[in-house]
């Protein structure tokens, strides 16, 4: 296997520090090396042509480029060798610029020694490279959108307009979500259903959207590109195709009346009902809990659509991507007992206020005291009910309630100019385009603002009293109101738990679904092919939910529009002979890519190659196609072949953060000692304890493992797994008489070059204090001897 080694001058960036001649002649003597050259700029056309020429003439079958960071030019050289007919994965790079010449500018001799090791390590790894073929799999061009609120609607329409087919699954009998129930919406006070209604019917009429309402997802299998989703459509007891939506005929004869959940309890509906006049689909639905089975609706229906013997229907869908738009649920105000919601009739929630203000709502737009039915004259809005409140476990701000109360207060004031309205707030949060102006508008309308969090509401002889301290004047007050509106916060929808568990979505401490990166990947889940839009990932206003729906749609289009998915050939694979079926890997896998089949089976479309399973497998049955056990062990052995300095550190750096930090230390020219020999791995969790033991056995004085900062792992929790393994390893070292401090785990973000350099310096200091590896064993041995001689 002839290997070509190319040592790059990079102008003077490398050659200004390292002795190129020495490196070239060192490389020539390494096993399997057919040619070693130094190139002025290996990435230039001339450099690339030289490599291609050698491949052709010397029949090289693998190439090592000792130059800059692979994070910079690995793609360049992969392209170059594949043009010359080599498999692109037959390339290995030695990072002698960012991680050598730029960080050891004052120690050229030691830096050259380090560079030799880095080149030897790369050659050793190169000898074990295997050609990898990026596989491509056909993918389904269907997308499942779960949740028919405004975010789900936005996603569904964008997807369908882009030519993909959408299955929109909604739990309720109608789409539209909470937005469809609101009255006018901030900050322009335009009618909510007037802007949403047309979108709802567009969904209904779109040829590329299959609308499945009153249904639930019960099973998800497969992975990105090819999910199989099963679910059930609950029985409406009304034939969707026959029902004309006239509702008066059937509901008119229905004898049962129950509080309507679409009016949040202040209005009523019949046992056979349509949620609201603009519902989509406009089809009646029988509430089986309320229905007494009298069948008068069956007789009354002119279209004979009511079928009380209807059965639930199972469905099965094949989709390439899933968009989770499961939304939110209002905070249950009865949990704040001091406000008396549920006990005092004139204490209501924002959503009940929305329904009252709604012209098609239960009061036809009148704002009344529920206890008397009279128009309310003194209205109070209480902010932060169930938000910013650790006593109910919701520390977060629900973002929309300040604006919602400002809006409702304006609407009440405009309708009844003499109403006395007070908003009790801790802070008014009006951050958004036109929002502060909206606040000013409310102030100018004469709405009162009291900076206070109301401590409790008392009802005395049918009258409500709010008790609070006006924190700006310091006065304790007890003030009478006719109607108190609790501005309830947004909580994650409990019913979305089923789907979350099926998909393996993680939740943040606040309970909402966690996105893949809190800033950079706002609509992606940790699981490939799954996207999250709208309030499912936290409270949001309407425009942001729509933007997220569209963003998730475009991500799904990007993923599926070609009809095939190219897979990185860096995945894990299982040796079925060795697998002992312990299922440890199944639990560890952050991508849920390993199935509980017997033996374990890796879904290569879902695997992202972190390698945690390979490190954990007690039977060594899992290996990686790239960054294989053998390759890494070869690097460790090459690094320790000749001990060129003390202390010698073998360092494992995760590709995403700490390798980036080491590169950044280079580009920032942060100087630190030469002792570390860096090995790139995809994740700190890839570090198999056997790599560490091999390094120490062969004379490395210490092993450093560097991962992303805790909580920032690119594979969710790989660094925690690495930490756990290091702790176990430390115990092992202690047992065999080695100082557990010889293994160290550190965290640094890709922006923390300085911290990486400091970690190296600190570790060197610690290892110097310990002495060369084995010092403690000799010491322990002599102590034992002393004890023996001391015996009589």
């Amino acid at each position, binding site marked *: 296997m002839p290997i070509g080694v190319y040592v790059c001058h990079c102008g003077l960036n490398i050659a200004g520090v390292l002795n190129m001649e020495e490196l070239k002649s060192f490389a020539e003597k390494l096993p399997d090396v057919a040619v070693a050259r130094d190139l002025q700029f290996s990435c230039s056309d001339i450099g690339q042509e030289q490599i291609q020429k050698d491949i052709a003439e010397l029949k090289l079958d693998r190439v090592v480029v000792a130059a800059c960071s692979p994070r910079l030019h690995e793609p360049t050289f992969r392209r170059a060798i594949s043009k010359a007919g080599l498999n692109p994965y037959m390339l290995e790079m030695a990072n002698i610029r960012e991680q050598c010449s730029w960080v050891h500018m004052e120690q050229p001799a030691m830096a050259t020694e380090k560079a030799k090791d880095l080149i030897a390590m790369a050659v050793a790894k190169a000898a074990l490279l295997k050609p990898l073929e990026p596989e491509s799999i056909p993918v389904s061009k269907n997308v499942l959108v779960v949740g028919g609120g405004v975010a789900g609607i936005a996603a569904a329409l964008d997807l369908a307009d882009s030519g993909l087919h959408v299955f929109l699954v909604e739990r309720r009998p109608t789409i539209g979500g909470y937005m469809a129930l609101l009255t006018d919406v901030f900050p322009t006070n335009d009618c909510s259903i007037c802007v949403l209604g047309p979108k709802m019917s567009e969904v209904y009429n779109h040829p590329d959207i299959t609308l499945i309402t009153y249904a639930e997802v019960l099973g998800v299998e497969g992975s990105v590109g090819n999910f199989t989703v099963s679910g059930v459509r609950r029985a409406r007891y009304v034939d969707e195709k026959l029902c004309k939506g006239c509702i008066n005929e059937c509901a008119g004869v229905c004898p049962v009346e129950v509080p309507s959940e679409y009016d949040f309890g202040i209005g009523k509906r019949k046992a056979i009902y349509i949620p609201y006049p603009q519902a989509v689909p406009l089809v009646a639905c029988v509430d089986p809990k309320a229905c007494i089975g009298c069948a008068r609706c069956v007789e009354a229906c002119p279209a004979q659509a009511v079928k009380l013997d209807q059965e639930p229907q199972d469905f099965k869908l094949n989709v390439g991507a899933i968009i989770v738009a499961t939304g939110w649920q209002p905070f249950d105000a009865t949990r704040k007992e001091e406000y008396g919601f549920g006990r005092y009739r004139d204490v209501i929630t924002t959503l009940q206020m929305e329904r009252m203000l709604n012209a098609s709502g239960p009061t036809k737009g009148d704002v009344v005291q529920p206890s008397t039915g009279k128009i309310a004259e003194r209205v109070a809005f209480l902010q932060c009910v169930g938000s910013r409140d650790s006593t109910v476990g919701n520390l977060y701000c629900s973002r929309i309630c300040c604006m919602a109360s400002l809006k409702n207060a304006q609407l009440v004031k405009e309708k009844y100019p003499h109403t006395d309205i007070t908003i009790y707030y801790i802070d008014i949060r009006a951050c958004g385009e036109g929002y502060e102006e909206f606040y000013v508008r409310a102030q100018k309308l004469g709405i009162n603002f009291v900076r206070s969090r109301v*401590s409790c509401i008392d009802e005395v002889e049918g009258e409500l009293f709010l008790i609070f301290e006006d924190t700006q004047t310091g006065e304790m007050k007890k003030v009478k109101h006719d109607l108190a509106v609790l501005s309830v916060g947004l909580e994650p929808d409990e019913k979305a738990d089923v789907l979350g568990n099926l998909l393996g979505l993680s939740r943040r401490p606040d309970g909402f679904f966690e996105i893949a990166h809190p800033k950079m990947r706002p609509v992606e889940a940790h699981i490939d092919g799954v996207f999250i839009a709208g309030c499912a990932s936290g409270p949001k206003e309407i425009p942001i939910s729509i933007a997220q729906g569209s963003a998730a749609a475009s991500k799904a289009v990007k993923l599926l529009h070609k009809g095939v998915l190219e897979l990185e050939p860096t995945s894990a694979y299982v040796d079925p002979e060795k697998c002992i079926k312990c299922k440890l890997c199944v639990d560890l896998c952050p991508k849920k890519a390993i199935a509980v089949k017997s033996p374990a089976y890796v879904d290569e479309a879902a695997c992202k190659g972190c390698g945690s399973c390979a490190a954990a497998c007690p039977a060594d049955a899992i290996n990686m196609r790239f960054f294989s056990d053998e390759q890494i062990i070869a690097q460790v052995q090459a690094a320790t072949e000749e001990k060129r300095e003390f202390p010698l550190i073998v360092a494992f750096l995760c590709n995403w953060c700490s390798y980036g930090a080491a590169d950044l230390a280079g580009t920032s020219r942060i100087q630190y000692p030469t002792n570390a020999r860096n090995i790139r791995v995809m994740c700190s969790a890839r570090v198999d304890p056997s790599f560490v033991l091999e390094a120490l056995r062969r004379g490395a004085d210490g092993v450093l493992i560097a991962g992303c900062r805790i909580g920032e792992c690119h594979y969710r929790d790989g660094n925690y797994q690495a930490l756990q393994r290091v702790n176990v390893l430390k115990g092992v070292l202690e047992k065999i008489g080695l100082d557990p401090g010889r293994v160290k785990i550190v965290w640094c973000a890709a922006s923390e070059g300085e911290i990486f350099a400091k970690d190296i310096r600190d570790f060197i200091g610690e290892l110097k204090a310990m002495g060369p590896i084995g010092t403690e064993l000799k010491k322990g041995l002599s102590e034992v001897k002393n004890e023996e001689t001391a015996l009589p």
Partner: protein
Amino acid sequence: MAGDERFKQEVLRLAGAEVLTCIQCGTCSASCPTAFLMNPSIRRLIKFCLEGKKEEALHNETLWLCTSCLLCTVRCPRGIRPKAVVSALKDMAEREGLRSKDAAYEQFFLKQIKDYGRIAELALTAEFLLVFPQGAVQSMQMGLELLPKGKIDLKIEKIKGRDEVKRIVEELSK
């Protein structure tokens, strides 16, 4: 910060670091059953602590008006324990030698138990009012109303076995 940082840190140590997260919403003061008598309110007391205003935080009546009902602590949306802040300030006030009415009253109360084995109301009130004369006039007026109704005992009664009670008190005071 211009305030007394050491004082602030001491309050945080005794009452918990959550005090730092106060948003001055006034839930504590508005929940307090004796808030109408307090000046400053508990909310402002907490602000004084955070500003390191030791004088204002320790020299006030608010501390001694707290009934320990814990409503403030139950309702605080930040999980702060305003009652713990009050207790911390009381401790500090006593350590500083600030004589509180409570402490003085407790002292007289205990002395009578030691001497007589029980309380002589008139003597106790008199002793207390000599040290804290504010309100003496109202107390005397009320006393004059109660006297003819036989509600006040002028005698000082002593119980049997006073030595043993004295020993118990002394043993427990160690």
